[in-house]
């Protein structure tokens, strides 16, 4: 059982890594012709604005401030939650993780609430015409991860030492016992599934937003 869980885990990690590398290869080896447009602003000049757009999801704000609020809060809280999870995979735990740890419960609650907020806004206020099944699956999965994570903290506390031993075993390639707990099983299984469904826009969108910023700012007419 122990070995099977480790095997499945490493298989998922390998598939995810291979998928990301393959995507990068496809992008780098694409040979289609690109328009040569000299009037677009050089990327370096528009970079600060582009980075701001990436960090604050500026393009979404311009399109829909209501959705932007939920999405930005969600992305930031997800990032913090993931960062705090580093405590399970590092030893010694970096001090920055300790600094944020007191906010972990609050951030988890905010993350789940923001997902609910996004759904409510989309369904009730914006009467969204396009529903992506993939997006719904992802949102449900992240919601499940968030709820199960919070439940392990407040409702059904699990042996955190046992979890850390298991996760450190994953990192150091020294298999340890899987914590036999229903909530943790759901949480970890959901995480593996999330990796398999990992949305590629996490990697490509930040780059494209920066390019779009260069397009938006140029050309200066009459130059």
């Amino acid at each position, binding site marked *: 059982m122990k070995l099977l869980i480790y095997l499945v885990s490493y298989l998922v990690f390998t598939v995810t890594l*291979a*998928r990301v590398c*393959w*995507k990068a290869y*496809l*992008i*780098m080896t*694409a*040979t*289609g*012709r*690109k*328009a*040569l*447009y*000299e*009037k677009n602003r050089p990327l370096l000049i528009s970079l600060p604005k582009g980075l701001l*757009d990436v960090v604050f*999801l500026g*393009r*979404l704000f*311009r*399109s*829909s401030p209501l*959705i932007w609020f939920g*999405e930005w809060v969600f992305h930031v809280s997800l990032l913090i939650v993931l960062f705090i999870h580093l405590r399970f995979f590092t030893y010694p735990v970096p001090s920055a993780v300790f600094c944020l740890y007191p906010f972990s419960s609050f951030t988890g609650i905010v993350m789940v609430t923001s997902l609910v907020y996004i759904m409510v806004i*989309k369904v009730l206020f914006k009467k*969204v*015409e*396009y*529903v*992506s099944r*993939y*997006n719904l699956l992802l949102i449900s999965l992240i919601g499940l991860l968030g709820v199960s994570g919070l439940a392990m903290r407040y409702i059904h506390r699990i042996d955190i030492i046992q979890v850390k031993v298991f996760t450190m075993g994953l990192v150091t390639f020294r298999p340890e016992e899987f914590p036999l707990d229903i909530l943790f099983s759901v949480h970890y299984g959901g995480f593996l599934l999330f990796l398999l469904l990992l*949305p*590629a*826009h996490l*990697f*490509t*969108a930040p*780059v*494209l*937003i*920066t*390019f*779009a*910023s260069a*397009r*938006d700012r*140029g*050309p200066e*007419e*009459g130059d």
Partner: protein
Amino acid sequence: MPKESFVKELSPEQVAEIDACTQCGECLRYCPVQEVTKNPDISPPEKLRVYREFIKATDSLKARLFGRKEIDRRLLEEFTKAIYECTTCGACGQFCPSGINTQRLWPTLRREMVKRGLGPLGSQREIPYNIENTGNPYGKPMSERFKGWFPEWVNLKDTAPVAYYAGCTGAYEAEPMVRGDVVVLASLGVEFTMLNNEEEVCCGFPLFITGQHDMLQDIVKRLVDSYQRRGVQYLVCSCPCCLNMMAKDWPVFYGGPLPFKVLHITEFILPILRKARTRLRRLSGRIIYHDPCYLSRGMGIVRAPREVLRSIEGVELIELDRHEKNSRCCGAGGAARKVFHENAIAIGRLTIDEAVRKGADRLVLSCPACYAKLNEAMEGYERKIKIVDIMELLAEALSGAAAEMVTTSSRGGADEPF
């Protein structure tokens, strides 16, 4: 062919764009085709999702390791229809939170469908034949390219640093617009040259936008060489589609930077106009300006047309709700207007409705396709507004000798050289 790679035509940026769509659906609120069809199956995120499936079937790691999957012909045909129903206005990209440059992406996907024998659709298939035989996509006689609209009093130079390119839609379907261009250039004292009716052929945009690239290299080389022989340093054009083609794609098909600069007519005349402001005649009324998609989102030109309009004293310039780079398509774009005629008319009427509702006296355009389509959309429609091209309006405002010449010439009279 259904098993062939789906990424061959894409640039690295475009491969990334296919994956960058989060399918949030924000773009649907701005898509003109969605506005009139309410069909999410042909929406931008759905098209990208389907194309992602194509790539997954032929180019994913699994497909490369264990063999490519065959794609259902019906699915390919449905995708082709969806991709050609688009007006390629690029509004979806303008509002895309991930910054996908859809105005460039859709034509590339169309190219992929053409390679597979699925596109283009309907009368779009006649475009290469028409251009080959008549020099224009409409199949109209080459000899009539400048007939009926070119002012007789305008003298063209054999060689000059400035050349004017009229374009096919302007010359055959929006004559008052190209007439306005020539009148304004001449009235402002610009000495310019033009290619004759055999030399000035289609810029290649209709071929590019429908994904039919075979003739493009020849056409571009022929046109660029002709302008180079005439000593041209600035090529001036008023058609936003031609301008996009010249500025962005001619260098690609020519094989390097062009030996001249390409400018929109408003950009070119603005500095001259600033000096000549005293010569403008006062006009009156409320005008509303529609930004053509390929001029605003395509070329980023939104300021120059407004400055030109504001230089005309007496007129009040008002804006459409969606203006500048956020403008709404007129329905004519992407060569979809001939195949999906009803969509185009319905989209065009949205702009007419808004202009009428805002109490504008004249709807000012700066694109021959918008000009032709909006005039067509008004036929048999209860709401009416006078449609005028920006250069047509400016020609009207040019006072003194120039204005007189416009009037005389429009009566078919004087041949007095300017």
